[in-house]
């Protein structure tokens, strides 16, 4: 890839999370994975009721607390302490995954190393270390009604993460619905990958040059909207 794209301004992690949070509708049940996705729980407008689920057995928790200020027995799946809120409930692990596997989650958001044009997800083997952690990722990828991936568009070396076929071991086949990156928002459909939004200052052609499979540019493709 060209050096001028390498140095070009991209969205930071907080802004990616802000864009992800825009997907959560009133009344939806949402699970957030570690990393960028978990930041999205901080970006829900007042008055919108989103029910957050965490694998460690809680539904309906509130915002993340400042480090050191919360109750260690009230944490999200990343171990961050969160605020209690009315309606919240707790359960054990078998129940927690019955909720996930049984199709009771509307949205799951995770990070990824690679996503293929068919929506295959690779996010559990750490590429440079050849070890991995499956954790709850497979259950979530198989069980959620809608799977959103939040990630950087390219690797540190500038290689595309959106690929024709995953070269890493996959977490689940054909499971991703939407990809939010630091330069674009892309929908995975039966027709192929549809470029819906680009980061400010980026053109669809530039996004394509950092993406391995062919993108279909939506006629309404526009700058990323955050709120």
């Amino acid at each position: 890839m060209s050096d001028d794209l390498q140095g070009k301004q991209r969205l930071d992690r907080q802004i990616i999370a802000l864009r992800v949070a825009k997907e959560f509708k009133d009344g939806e049940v949402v699970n957030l994975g570690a990393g960028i996705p978990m930041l999205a729980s901080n970006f829900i407008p007042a008055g919108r009721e989103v029910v957050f689920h965490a694998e460690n057995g809680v539904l309906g928790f509130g915002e993340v607390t400042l480090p050191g200020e919360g109750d260690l027995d009230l944490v999200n799946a990343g171990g961050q302490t969160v605020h209690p809120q009315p309606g919240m409930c707790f359960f054990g692990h078998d129940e927690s995954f019955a909720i996930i596997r049984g199709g009771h989650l509307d949205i799951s958001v995770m990070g990824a190393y690679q996503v293929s044009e068919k929506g295959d997800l690779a996010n559990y083997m750490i590429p440079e270390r050849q070890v991995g952690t499956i954790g709850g990722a497979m259950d979530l990828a198989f069980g959620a009604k809608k799977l959103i991936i939040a990630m950087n568009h390219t690797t540190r070396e500038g290689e595309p993460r959106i690929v024709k076929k995953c070269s890493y071991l996959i977490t689940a086949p054909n499971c991703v619905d939407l990809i939010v990156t630091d330069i674009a928002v892309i929908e995975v459909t039966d027709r192929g990958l549809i470029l819906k939004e680009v980061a400010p200052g980026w053109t669809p052609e530039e996004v394509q040059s950092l993406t391995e499979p062919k993108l279909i540019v939506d006629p309404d493709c526009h700058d990323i909207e955050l709120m």
Partner: protein
Amino acid sequence: MPINKIVASFDEAVADIEDGAVIMVGGFGTVVSTPSLLLEAIYRKGVKNLTTVSNSSGFGADVWRMQGAPFPEDMDILVRNERIKKAIVSAPVSALYVNNFEKLLRAGKIEIEMVPQGTLAERVRAAKAGLGGVYVPVGIGTVVEEGKEKKTIDGREYLLELPIKADFALIHAYKGDRWGNLVYRGTSRTFNPTMAGAARVTIAEVDEIVELGELDPEAIVTPGVYVDRVVARPKIAPAEEAEITDAQALESRRRYEAEIEDSIKAAKERGLRHE
């Protein structure tokens, strides 16, 4: 004679756990959900060649001391002291730093069977419920399906996942009584009630023992029938003067907390902070 499952000490609670035992360990990853003092007692007893069944392989006591947890040991005490022969585990390594489990794995000093978290829960539950296995859709089309029987039910493919039985289940609960009835606290419930009753002997480490009848029958999470021994944590944590040594883990924790602070700041700037 009155039923009394209460044992006086952690050492007594684990006295019959021998080399080569299969042990389930409750909790998620956070130390407060973990039976820390039972793990310490097993370490003190010196047993080795264990097969462990747990969600994670621990972060190590330093990380939890930094958070102010009064009982900071987790699975890492068995990992770093090389007491484990084989780990059946869902989340063995960290994307953020190289933990002790990964070091042993690289050195060929530990066997691993990695299981998706929900499948782990269901295989444990199958053992507890006396099932011969469960058909699970998770893992179809991935390495998880290798060597497993497949069955199509109502047009969807499933894998046959077999029960995981253990000799001992070590769990952590908030309150327990002499019958072994248990309640938990917040998000520290996790694998603890799932594992209770899935082993030949279930040992519950509780924050507090209460009189029989004090726990609301409507709110008891684990019926005492699943529990064989109950042992209470000391009221006041032993003083911790230990030096924090795992610089990599601490740095990873520091970055993690900095990101939470950034995120709260970003939310405030956009008028999205409600607390």
